[in-house]
C-alpha cells in the first residue's frame, strides 16, 4: 500500500469511529452541571472526526501535488524538498521520497527525517490467522485451564513456525507452561485457571 492509500483509509476509518463515538454520547443522561458527563466524550468524538478528515484530506492534497510534479519531469526534485521543508512530519516527506520504506515505518522516523529501514510486512492472511489462534487461546484458557491451553497454544504456534523441530517445540511448550504456572501460582500467588485438570 502506498502512503497515500494508507493515510486515506486510516483517516476515513478514524472519522467513522469518531462519528460512532459522537452518536453514542446522545445516550448519556443530561445533568445540570456546568460540565456535563457528555461534554468530554462529545469533544473527543468531534475531535476524532475532524482529525480523521484532516488526515484523509492531507493525503489527497499531497497525492495531487505528487501526480502534478511527476507530470512535469525535472520539478520532482524540488517538490520533494518542499515537502520535506513544510514541517509537517517526517512521515509525509519520507512517504513521498520512498514510498516502499515509509509505508509502515512512521513509528520509527525521527525529527527531521532520520529514516530507518521499514520492518518487513507480513501477509494479511497470516496475520489474521495468528490473531485467530490467539483468540482461540483466550477463549479456551478459562474452561480448559492454563496448563493445557497454554501448552497447546505454544505447541501450535511454534509448530507452524518450525514444524521439523517438534521435539524441541514440545519440550518448550510443556516446560514453559509448567514453570510459569508454578512461578505465578506458588511464587506470586496469582491463581491461574485450573480448568478440566481441577
Amino acid at each position, binding site marked *: 500500500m502506498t502512503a497515500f492509500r494508507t493515510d486515506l483509509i486510516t483517516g476515513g476509518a478514524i472519522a467513522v469511529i469518531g462519528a460512532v463515538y459522537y452518536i453514542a454520547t446522545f445516550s448519556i443522561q443530561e445533568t445540570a452541571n456546568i460540565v456535563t458527563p457528555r461534554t468530554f466524550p462529545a469533544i473527543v468524538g468531534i475531535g476524532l472526526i475532524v482529525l480523521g478528515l484532516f488526515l484523509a484530506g492531507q493525503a489527497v492534497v499531497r497525492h495531487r501535488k505528487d501526480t502534478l510534479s511527476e507530470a512535469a519531469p525535472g520539478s520532482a526534485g524540488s517538490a520533494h524538498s518542499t515537502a520535506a521543508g513544510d514541517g509537517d512530519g517526517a512521515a509525509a516527506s519520507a512517504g513521498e521520497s520512498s514510498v516502499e520504506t515509509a509505508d509502515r515505518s512512521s513509528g520509527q522516523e525521527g525529527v527531521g527525517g532520520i529514516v*530507518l529501514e521499514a520492518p518487513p510486512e507480513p501477509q494479511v492472511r497470516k496475520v489474521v490467522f495468528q490473531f485467530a489462534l490467539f483468540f482461540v487461546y483466550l477463549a479456551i484458557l478459562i474452561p480448559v485451564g492454563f496448563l493445557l491451553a497454554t501448552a497447546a497454544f505454544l505447541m501450535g504456534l511454534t509448530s507452524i513456525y518450525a514444524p521439523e523441530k517438534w521435539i524441541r517445540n514440545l519440550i518448550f511448550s510443556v516446560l514453559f507452561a509448567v514453570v510459569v504456572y508454578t512461578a505465578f501460582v506458588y511464587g506470586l500467588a496469582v491463581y491461574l485457571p485450573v480448568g478440566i485438570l481441577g
Partner: protein
Amino acid sequence: MDTLIDLGGGFASALEPVSLAFALLGVLLGTVVGVLPGIGPISAIAILIPVSFGMEPVHGLILLCGIYYGSMYGGSITATLIKTPGEVASAVTAIEGYEMARRGRGKAALATAAIGSFLAGTLAIIGLTFLSPVLVKLANVFGATEYFLLMATALLLASTMSAGSRAKALISIFIGLAVGLIGLDFQTGLPRQTFGMDLLSDGIDFTIFAMALFAIPEAIRNLALGRGAKDEIQSFGDDKWMTKEDWQRSAGPWARGSVVGFIIGILPGVGPSLASFMSYIMEKRISKRKDEFGHGAIEGVAGPEASNNAGVGGAMIPLFSLGIPGSATTALLLFVFTMYGLQPGPLIFRDETGLIWTIIASMYIGNIALIILNLPLVGVFVKLLKMPKEILFSSILVLVVIGAYAIEFSLFGLMMLGIFGVIGYLMEKGGIPLAPAILALVLVPLLEDNFRRMLQISGGSFAPLVTRPVSLSIIILMVLGIIGPVVFRWWVSRRKLLADVTVS
C-alpha cells in the same frame, strides 16, 4: 539540608538486603527484556507489572524503576548489534552504533553507551533529588486550573514534539481519550460510552490496554512473518574497548547530552526519544568530523544514549512531585503507584516520605548496578539475541495473557486484551504512534476532573486560565511548545542537518 537527611534515610532503607536485591533484580530483568528484539521499555514494564502485584509497594516500585532503566540500556545493545531499536529513543543508536559495530568497534559503542547512560542517569537523579522538593513547594499554590493546564500541555506537547506526523500523534491521543472515557462518570455515576454493555462500566483497564497495544502487535507481526532472513548479529569478541581517543571524543557528548536530555525530560509530554534526537543533531552540528556521522561516529552514540537516560530521570520529576506523567513509560509507573493506593504528588512527599526517598535512593543504586553488572555481562545478554523468534514471541503472548487474567480474572478481560491487540495492530499499520494513546488514557480522568473543578470554582468562567500568574505562565509555555518544534523542524530541514543520514 532536609533533602539530604531525607535522602540519607532513603539510602538506609534502600541498602537493606531485600530492597537491594529488588533493585538489582529490576535492573537485570529490565536489561534482559530490553535486549529482546522489538521489546522496548514500555512493553517491558507492561509485561512485568503482574510480577509486582503481590509485592510490598516499595519493593514493587523499586523493581519497576530498575526495569525501566535496565530496559533502556538493554535496548541500546540490541540497537547496536542487530540494528533493531526497541523504541524510538534508540533509533539513532541503531544508526551510529550499528555502523560502529560493523567496523569492529562494537565494544567501544556499547561501552560509551553504558558509561554515558550511567553518568547522565546519575546526574539526572541528582537533579531529581534536589528539584523535586522545590517543585513540591511550588505545587502548593497549584489549583485545579494549573493542573488542568499542565495535563493539557503534556498531551499537546506529546503530539507536537513526537517523531513523525503530528496529525497522527494527535489521533493517537484522541484514541486514548476516547478509550479512557468509557465507563462510569466518577462525578455523577452515570454510564458513558458503554454501548449498553454493563461489563464496560468499570472502564478499560490501563495495563490491559498498554500490554495489548505494545506487546501483541509486535509479537503477532513477527510470528506472521514466518522464517525469513535471520537478523545478522554483529560480533564484537575481539574488538577493543574504548581507546583514549574514544574517551576524549565521548566526554563532551556525554555532558551535553545529559543537560539536553534532563531539560527535555522534565517537560510534560515529551519523552526521551526527542532528547536523543536533539542530542544527535546537536553533536552533528558542532562536530569537526561531520562526515563520520552516519558511518559510526562515537559522538552519535555517546550523546543520544546519555541524553535519553538523563531524560528518564528528568521525566520522574513531574511524576513524583506533581503526579503528572510526561511520557507513556512514566504513565505506566503512575499507574503502578495508584495500583498500590499511592498518589504521587506533593502529598506523597509529606505522607510517604520514607517510601519516596527509598525509591529515589534505589535509583542511584540501580544505576551503579547497571554499569557494574552489565558491561562485563554483555556477552551473556547477546546470547539472548539468538533466541528463536517463535519461542520469544509466543512466550510474550502467554505472559500478557497471564497479566490480563491476573487483573480481571474473567473472559471479558481476556477478550479486551485481544480486541485492543487488533486495534493496536491496525493503528501501527495506519502509521499512528501508540505511546501517546497510553499517556492520554492515564491523563483523561485527571484532565476532566480538574477541568470541572476549575469551572465550578470560577462559576463557569474561563478567566482563571489567564488571570492566575502560574496558569498564565503555563499557557505561555504551551504556546512555545507549539511554535518551538515548528521552528526547530524548519531549522533542521533548512540546514539539511540530517539529509545524509537517511538510511533506506
